[in-house]
Every structure is written in structure tokens, then in C-alpha cells.
């Protein structure tokens, strides 16, 4: 088990990297240059807040015992009674809670008060993520999605991506459009950051998917480890590759050019879609899921213009749509692991492999539960914030730039010659010594 623990520590670090810096870069590059710091800060502060909430009551709500919707927040409050051998798993799951919450920020870029996000994050993790994570990842007989419905979700198509995607949609609707949208659209200000972020997300995702292996008592543990990690690693890779092609093909046909943002988006769409299916399908199924996800998401990102919601960075078009595709397609292309192969994931054949409708129905029900739970929980929190502290920065701050208004900083100083007119000095209240120091 030493080897397994070392593997899980690495997997945990990889998923930690997905939020900071990968997601922060991916999203930051897509915003305007005057909003990039605020966008990145939404990921960084989600990391800090969700992590603390997780060890206080989150872990207990997810893994602290039985429950249809969630477990008691008190059983393992503050990690009480968590055995010394439970810490690695606890930390691995912490990183999932963090990135799921951070993903939502892309839907409300450029216009939200930092304080409103800081209030939203712990409430949403508590009311939406922890319950859905319990329903999916804490697979006891009475946990709703995994136990009662019996839907397969290897690493979080429902609890992570559909959950974050629905939350993004609800927030985009409650928070409202950016000034001037959709007439004045905002161009991504630095696609090189976005390309870098997408590639780092891809690498981090191996921790996410491959690390999600759960040992089954019937199998020899080391055999299962060997067989299953190889399969999930290959599926994660090939689905992503197929999704790049799918996205670029649709773009080329619909808009005439294959774009870098399309490739980066295809990477994320493919990873999202293979997340629930990583252990349930063979390589043909993985390629099919990736191709469909890339192609459909490339089309789905245009829905916001047709329906009129300002999901700024396409959390809905990529995470909600990709999550649904991956989770539902398990019902079509999942395969029972061949006898003796020691792969636990694909416990049932999908429709295309002669398994009938049983799996498909379970997958669709799982999707619906995730959509309903996240939709209601997010709506309650979003409205509560809207009618108390309020979501939006002032119109003036939104136009001048949210970085300056909310953080008092600007991301770039590109005036090499005239230094942007900067004069150094100290703010009021600094000590005399500090003032002298600056002068010297």
C-alpha cells in the first residue's frame, strides 16, 4: 500500500494544480485585460475558502456516514475521528471540492463583487457540492445517485461538471448580463495564457480520473490497480484527442477556421465528458465520447447568444453539456469488464453492447438529480446574495475595469518608456521608517 499512497499523493497534487494555476490561466486569458486579475483571484480564493470548509464539515458531509442526500456534518467535524490512514484520501477529495467551486467563476466574469463571490463559495460548497459528492462518491446503499439509482460516475461527471455547469447557468441568469452584452462582446485578451491553462488542466486531469480508482474487495488489489489505471489513463487521453478534432471540425464547417481557442476548448470538453466514463468504457467508447463532446460543445457555446444569458466563459456550453454527454453516453457504450480483467468500473453493458436500457435509464436519472439539486441549491444562494449584499460592481467599475475597482491593481504595465506615469510612494498610515526606506 506504500506505492498506492505515493500514487495518490501525486494524483492529489495534480488535481491541486488544476485550480491554481491551470484553471486561473485558462479563464484569465479569456477575460478582458482589465479583468484578468479578478478572474484569477476567484480561483485562488475558492481554493482557500473551500479547503477550510472541507476540513471543518465538508469531509464529514460527504464521507461521514450514511444518508440519501448527505451525511452528518458532525461525525467527522474538523476531521474528528479521521484515522491516520484517511488523510491522503481526504486531501484528494478536498481538491475536487475546490476545483468544482472554482469552475463556476467563468460564468460570471468581469462584473461580480469580490465580496459576493467570497460569500457564495462556502455556501455553495456546503449546499450543492458536498451533498452531490456524497450522493455520487460515497457509494453506500442509500446514497441517491450511486446507491439508489445505480448511475455510474467514475470521477465526477455529475457531482463536478453538471453541478458546476448548472450553477454557472443559474448565476449567469441571476447576476445578469455584462453592460452592453451581447452587442459589445469582449475578446479574449491573451490566448497564450488560455492555451497554457488548457494544457495544464489536461495534465492535472490524470490525477483527477486515474486517481479516482476505488478498490473492490472481489479483486486482487494490485492486479486491479495495474489494469484499471492503465485503462483510465488511456481513455482520458484518447477522448481528449478526439474532442480536439471534433471541436475543430465543427468550427471549420460552421465558421471557416480552426482556432486555438477551439483547440483549448476541445481539450476541456473532452476531459469533462470522459470524467464519468473513464473506467466504464473501452478505447472505442472513449473516442466516441470525446468526438461527440468536442463537436456538440463547439455548437453548444453559441446557445447563450440564442437564449440570451451571459455565461461569459462558457461554463454551461462546456461543463454542463460535456458532463451530460459523458454521463449519458455511458448508458450507450459502457462495457462489462471481461472476466478476470480486474477492471471494476464498467459493471454493466450499455445499450450498444446488448445491455438494454437499464444503464441508460440510470444514467439519465443521475443527470436529472444532479441538475435539480444544483439548480435549486444555487438559486437559493444566488437570490439570497442578490437581495442582501448584491452581486454587481458599479457600472463605472465594470467599465473602468474590475481589477482596479475590486483589487486596486492592474495586470499589465506595458508602457516601457513612460512607465505608465507611475510615481512611487507610500500609502497614508505607513511608518516613518518605511517612508524613509522608499525615498532612499
Amino acid at each position, binding site marked *: 500500500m506504500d506505492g498506492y499512497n505515493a500514487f495518490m499523493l501525486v494524483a492529489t497534487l495534480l488535481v491541486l494544480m488544476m485550480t491554481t494555476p491551470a484553471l486561473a490561466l485558462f479563464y484569465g486569458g479569456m477575460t478582458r485585460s482589465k479583468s484578468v486579475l479578478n478572474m484569477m483571484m476567484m480561483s485562488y480564493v475558492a481554493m482557500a475558502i473551500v479547503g477550510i470548509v472541507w476540513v471543518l464539515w465538508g469531509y464529514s458531509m460527504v464521507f461521514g456516514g450514511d444518508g440519501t442526500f448527505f451525511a452528518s456534518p458532525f461525525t467527522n467535524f474538523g476531521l474528528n475521528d479521521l484515522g491516520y490512514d484517511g488523510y491522503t484520501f481526504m486531501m484528494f477529495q478536498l481538491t475536487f471540492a475546490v476545483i468544482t467551486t472554482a469552475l463556476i467563476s467563468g460564468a460570471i466574469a468581469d462584473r461580480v463583487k469580490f465580496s459576493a463571490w467570497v460569500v457564495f463559495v462556502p455556501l455553495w460548497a456546503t449546499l450543492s457540492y458536498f451533498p452531490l459528492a456524497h450522493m455520487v462518491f460515497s457509494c453506500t446503499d442509500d446514497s441517491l445517485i450511486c446507491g439508489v439509482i445505480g448511475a455510474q460516475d467514475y470521477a465526477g461527471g455529475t457531482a463536478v461538471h453538471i453541478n458546476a455547469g448548472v450553477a454557472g447557468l443559474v448565476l449567469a441568469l441571476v447576476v445578469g448580463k455584462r453592460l452592453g452584452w451581447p452587442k459589445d*462582446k469582449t*475578446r*479574449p485578451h491573451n490566448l497564450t495564457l488560455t492555451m497554457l491553462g488548457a494544457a495544464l488542466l489536461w495534465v492535472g486531469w490524470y490525477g483527477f480520473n486515474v486517481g479516482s480508482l476505488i478498490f473492490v474487495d472481489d479483486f486482487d488489489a494490485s492486479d486491479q490497480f495495474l489494469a484499471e489505471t492503465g485503462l483510465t489513463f488511456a481513455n482520458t487521453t484518447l477522448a481528449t484527442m478526439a474532442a480536439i478534432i471534433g471541436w475543430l471540425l465543427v*468550427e471549420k464547417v*460552421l*465558421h*471557416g*477556421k480552426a*482556432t486555438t*481557442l*477551439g483547440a483549448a*476548448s476541445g481539450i476541456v470538453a473532452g476531459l469533462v465528458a470522459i470524467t464519468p466514463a473513464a473506467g466504464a468504457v473501452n478505447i472505442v467508447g472513449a473516442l466516441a465520447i470525446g468526438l461527440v463532446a468536442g463537436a456538440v460543445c*463547439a*455548437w453548444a*457555446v*453559441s446557445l447563450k*447568444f440564442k437564449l440570451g444569458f451571459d455565461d461569459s466563459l*462558457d461554463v454551461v*456550453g462546456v461543463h454542463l453539456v460535456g458532463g451530460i454527454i459523458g454521463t449519458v453516453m455511458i448508458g450507450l457504450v459502457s462495457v462489462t469488464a471481461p472476466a478476470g480483467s480486474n477492471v471494476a468500473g464498467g459493471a454493466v453493458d450499455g445499450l450498444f453492447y446488448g445491455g438494454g436500457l437499464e444503464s441508460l435509464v440510470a444514467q439519465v436519472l443521475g443527470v436529472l438529480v444532479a441538475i435539480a439539486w444544483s439548480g435549486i441549491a444555487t438559486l437559493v444562494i444566488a437570490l439570497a446574495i442578490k437581495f442582501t449584499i448584491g452581486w454587481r460592481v458599479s457600472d463605472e467599475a465594470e467599465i473602468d475595469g474590475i481589477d482596479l475597482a475590486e483589487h486596486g491593481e492592474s495586470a499589465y504595465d506595458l508602457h516601457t518608456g513612460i512607465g505608465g506615469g507611475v510615481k512611487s510612494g507610500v500609502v497614508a498610515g505607513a511608518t516613518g521608517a518605511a517612508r524613509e526606506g522608499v525615498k532612499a
Partner: protein
Amino acid sequence: MKLVTAVIKPHKWEDVREALETFGVTGMTVSEVSGYGRQKGHTEVYRGAEYDIALVPKIRIEIVVDDADVDDVVGIVVKTAQTGRIGDGKVWTTPVDSVVRVRTGEQDDAAL
């Protein structure tokens, strides 16, 4: 004295500078600017959404020259920067009342 201002396509800037140097122009002020004329802007597509980019990048050259040289300088810029396609730019001249060289205090023609 006249101020010659030229707004040209960025890829023509090196050719124009060389041609002016050959003619004897010893200095100029150059800036990266954006704007549009009859060619308007262009469109870019991000995740399927079309963006009208109204402003096109251009190079603006400013040179103060003696009255006698104005026609030659304008001619050189036009000849060198011309591609015959829309968006080649504009050149215009404005009268200049006085010029002072900061280093020496020399005035007008002596300061050019």
C-alpha cells in the same frame, strides 16, 4: 517648415524608413496607432461568436521638413507605402510655426 504626417501599413514601415533615409531625412517620430478608413475593420471569431474589430493597427510617422523638401518627402512615402489595395493609409502636411532643438537652443531651419 511643414509637419508631414503619414499613416501607413505596418509592414511597409521599414521600406519607408529606408527610402527616407536614402533621401536624407535624418530623424522622425514613429508611433503604433490604430484606426480605420474606407476598409473599415475586420472580423474575428471566438468560440463561434463573431467580433467586429473596428480598429486596424497602423504606423504613424511624423517628420518636420523644410518647405523645399515637402513634395519630395510626401512623394517618397506615397511611392514606397503603396500596395494599391484598400487600407494603404494617408499622408498630410501641416504648417509649423517654430522648431527648437532642445540640446542647443538652435531655432527653425537650423534645428531640423
